[in-house]
């Protein structure tokens, strides 16, 4: 059969599958379906094609008795699935053609799909990239998370202020999930410990008077590239122990019955909208426990399908904790082994430690999870007992090794404070795992020398680095089809599953024809983004201008304020000194602020105020434009990133663990301007320092300034009239004409010696680096060379590489 016939068959097969689902799943002929129903019919047709492979993949892993990895994460930031799944299944073109035959546009249907925003930012997106890589590599690894009914809030902007609205992404159902009610599990929570003796007179604490929740699993199917392996991401919804407690209902207390149901189901109702610490919230603790209790029960159930001896558990099961949110899994596995399976404490502990690995994602001591002991006692009394016993035994070892060093013991204890006021989840994660990793070399070094230095001294063998990565399928093949086609036309498509192949593009950086085509791709992507901005914001962008982009969560340490300082600096130079920018620039920002994070919300307002002043000033015409694109999410990132020229990665050195936006942008041919922080350092090393613009303080400098309390922003300002003018501008009413005092917080922040982010210390270097970047952009040939080399040399930052490293060095799983 010739190639054309195969393609035609695939198209007609797809066409009939879609029409079949229109009629038999949705009950209407295709022509009568609305847009969303059409999307559902297509997705169901695609899902059918994945299910067969899912069953075969599972069968193969079971037949080979493969060791499995379970990736526990409170967040999975999936985004849209239709386009990405079609590309991974290599069915995109046939589906597009099938739909075209049916008079529909695939892109339009892709757009209608709501993002599965089950995450806040980097941590959740990393988890999504990892499970996609595991499927692509054919490695038995599966995600476990929560099926939040409401994902991350939707962001709207009203007069410059962020307004949040609920993201009811499941309102119309999702075709991607398969409910598995037969695998629902019962989860006890709350209650008390009764101290008793067993039949042999041995102490036997009993967990009594608990309430019960039901964990209902739904599987999202994750196709690997090529469609050979299809994996699942298991997401749990909380249900009341009965759909309706009929006895309470019959007793006449209808409202009590409903209230109990609502309380139980609250657990999976909503994602906490903060990318930092969530302190003391009972619901969050219950949510974390719910995830791990369901997951551990399911993992053990799967293990016991083919095994009886728990000594084999660590050779068949690896569990990775994505940050400390699922750390209670350590205590839950201990509880299950000791209480339910009656293993000795020592045997259970050995199994547990060999099973778990822990990934740290933050160095900020304020962001470390701690739970009040009193709260934990109330919610999880048996788990608290287990933590106390782990702590007691661990401190015995510490004291034996460092006799008399009570300060050290206090630092490494699982409890904070002399009266054990709080449980430290980081310490629990480190003590309960055989592997502890940071996510970039700098971050891992800082973990070992600062945050976890005591643990590194005790058990250095546990510590290792696993630099983050991104999925080439999601972030190039799917997000940037034009660049994909260009690359494939030059070096083939091996890079899709082996990103280091992109090195073959290097010679093309010197090829005039290739550079012209590359520029054309970038321009087209910029035009697409411009159209989107014009449609949503009524702002016309100039695709020939430098697209200077900072998109990420709004947070003090990510320093959107530093970006604003640069914008205002350029503006003042233009309007007060008549100095035109070296190149016209479009400043593009996007990102959500946690609803309770005042400063982050002020920054969003400030971007809008500054943008209004600049965009409405005729002197900036064709030279400067500032836009804030609302509701940043995965599907929006997929449009912004391919259109980016200059990638802003300007966190305070030593604060960003890795960052992955930096990788996504470089992969799409953006050039980085960044600090010596997180993975910026590694990216710069890989692409060549001459092909990125790194500037500013090193993390050691930042530490020293903080430790010595030597930051004197006023002195920095006094030395430079340009900075004085810049700082003053925020209290001058230039940006808040009717309320000059409204922007005064900016000057106060900048001139405060307590400014943790040291904005003014880095500003002069940042401005110089920006000038260099502008000069480079002005030289189209040079800029395109830089951009091409960024693409060609970014291969290391594939999530396939990261997952392989984890698999070889931590998880012990293999490709099939």
């Amino acid at each position, binding site marked *: 059969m010739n190639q054309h016939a195969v393609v035609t068959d695939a198209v007609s097969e797809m066409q009939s599958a879609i029409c079949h689902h229109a009629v038999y799943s949705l009950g209407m002929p295709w022509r009568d379906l609305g847009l969303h129903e059409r999307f559902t019919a297509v997705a169901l047709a695609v899902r059918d094609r994945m299910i067969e492979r899912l069953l075969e993949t599972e069968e193969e892993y079971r037949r080979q008795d493969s060791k499995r990895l379970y990736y526990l994460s409170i967040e999975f930031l999936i985004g849209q699935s239709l386009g990405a799944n079609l590309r991974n299944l290599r069915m995109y073109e046939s589906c597009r053609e099938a739909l075209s035959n049916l008079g529909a546009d695939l892109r339009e249907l892709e757009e209608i799909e709501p993002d599965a925003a089950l995450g806040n930012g980097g941590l959740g997106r990393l988890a999504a990239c990892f499970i996609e890589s595991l499927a692509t590599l054919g490695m038995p690894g599966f995600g476990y998370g929560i099926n939040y009914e409401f994902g991350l809030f939707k962001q709207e902007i009203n007069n410059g202020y962020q307004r949040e609205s609920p993201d009811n992404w499941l309102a119309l159902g999702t075709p991607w999930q398969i409910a598995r009610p037969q695998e629902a599990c019962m989860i006890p929570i709350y209650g008390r410990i009764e101290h008793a003796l*067993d*039949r042999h007179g041995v102490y*036997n604490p009993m967990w009594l008077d608990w309430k019960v929740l039901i964990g209902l699993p739904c599987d999202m199917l994750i196709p690997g590239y090529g469609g050979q392996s299809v994996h699942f991401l298991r997401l749990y919804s909380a249900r009341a122990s009965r759909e309706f407690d009929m006895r309470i209902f019959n007793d006449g207390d209808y409202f009590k019955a409903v209230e109990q149901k609502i309380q139980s189901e609250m657990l999976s109702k909503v994602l906490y909208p903060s990318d930092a610490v969530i302190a003391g919230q009972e619901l969050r603790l219950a949510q974390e426990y719910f995830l791990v209790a369901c997951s551990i029960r399911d993992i053990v159930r799967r293990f016991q399908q083919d095994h009886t001896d728990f000594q084999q558990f660590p050779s068949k099961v690896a569990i990775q904790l994505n940050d400390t949110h699922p750390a209670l899994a350590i205590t839950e596995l201990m509880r299950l082994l000791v209480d339910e399976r009656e293993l000795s404490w020592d045997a259970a502990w050995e199994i547990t430690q060999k099973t778990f690995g822990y990934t740290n994602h933050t160095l900020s001591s304020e962001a470390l999870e701690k739970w009040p002991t009193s709260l934990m006692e109330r919610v999880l009394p048996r788990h608290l007992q287990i933590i106390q016993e782990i702590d007691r035994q661990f401190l015995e070892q510490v004291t034996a090794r460092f006799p008399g060093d009570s300060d050290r013991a206090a630092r490494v204890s699982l409890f904070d404070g002399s009266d054990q006021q709080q449980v430290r989840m980081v310490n629990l994660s480190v003590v309960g795992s055989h592997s502890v990793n940071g996510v970039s070399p700098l971050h891992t070094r800082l973990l070992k020398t600062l945050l976890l230095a005591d643990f590194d001294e005790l058990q250095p063998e546990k510590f290792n680095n696993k630099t983050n990565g991104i999925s080439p399928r999601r972030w190039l093949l799917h997000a940037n089809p034009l660049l994909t086609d260009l690359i494939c036309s030059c070096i083939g498509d091996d890079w899709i599953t082996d990103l280091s192949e992109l090195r073959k593009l290097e010679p093309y950086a010197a090829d005039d024809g290739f550079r012209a085509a590359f520029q054309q791709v970038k321009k087209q992507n910029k035009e697409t983004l411009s159209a989107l901005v014009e449609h949503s914001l009524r702002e016309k962008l100039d695709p020939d201008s430098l697209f200077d982009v900072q998109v990420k969560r709004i947070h003090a340490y990510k320093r959107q304020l530093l970006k604003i300082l640069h914008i205002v600096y350029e503006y003042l130079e233009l309007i007060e000194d008549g100095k035109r920018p070296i190149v016209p620039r479009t400043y593009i920002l996007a990102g959500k602020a946690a609803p309770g994070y005042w400063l982050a919300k002020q920054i969003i307002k400030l971007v809008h105020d500054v943008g209004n002043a600049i965009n409405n000033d005729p002197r900036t015409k064709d030279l400067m434009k500032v836009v804030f694109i609302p509701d940043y999410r995965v599907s929006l990132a997929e449009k912004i990133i391919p259109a980016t020229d200059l990638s802003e990665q300007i966190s305070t050195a030593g604060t960003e663990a890795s960052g992955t936006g930096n990788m996504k942008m470089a992969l799409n041919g953006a050039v980085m301007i960044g600090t010596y922080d997180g993975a910026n350092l590694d990216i710069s090393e890989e692409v060549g320092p001459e092909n990125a613009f790194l500037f500013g303080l090193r993390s050691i400098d930042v530490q020293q300034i903080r430790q010595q309390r030597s930051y004197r922003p006023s002195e920095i300002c006094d030395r430079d009239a340009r900075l004085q003018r810049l700082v003053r501008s925020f209290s001058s009413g230039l940006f808040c004409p009717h309320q000059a005092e409204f922007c005064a917080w900016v000057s106060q922040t900048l001139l405060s010696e307590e400014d943790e982010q040291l904005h003014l210390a880095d500003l002069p270097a940042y401005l110089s680096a920006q000038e260099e970047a502008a000069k480079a952009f002005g030289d189209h040939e040079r800029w395109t060379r830089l951009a091409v080399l960024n693409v060609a040399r970014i291969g290391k930052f594939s999530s396939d590489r990261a997952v392989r490293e984890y698999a070889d060095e931590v998880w012990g799983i293999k490709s099939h």
Partner: protein
Amino acid sequence: MEIPIENRGNVTVAEIPVKELDAGNSGDLKAAMAKVLESSSRIVIDLHSMQFVDSSGLGAILSFLRQASAKGGDLKLCGMTKQVRTAFELVRMHRIFDIFETRDEAVAAFNCKVRESQ
């Protein structure tokens, strides 16, 4: 709640007659069992009908053991389904009860104990 009783020598076998034992009916069970516990201190509880038990139900069964022990007697369990066994294991209650597969085995265990003590 009506509890089916079978007397096997000096052992009383009581069957829990519900499929689900929870907060809604564990009070009724306690009331119904009070008579059994009054008249006998050597008791076997047969759980074969039960498919689900929550913490209130477990608490009720635990209280029966305590009452029997307080009178110098004992209480054994039999006929546990997998789901009910899981709930006992969850709270470590399986460690404080003598648990048997069948009614005959549970009754026999009482009689062995009698012979041992003689």
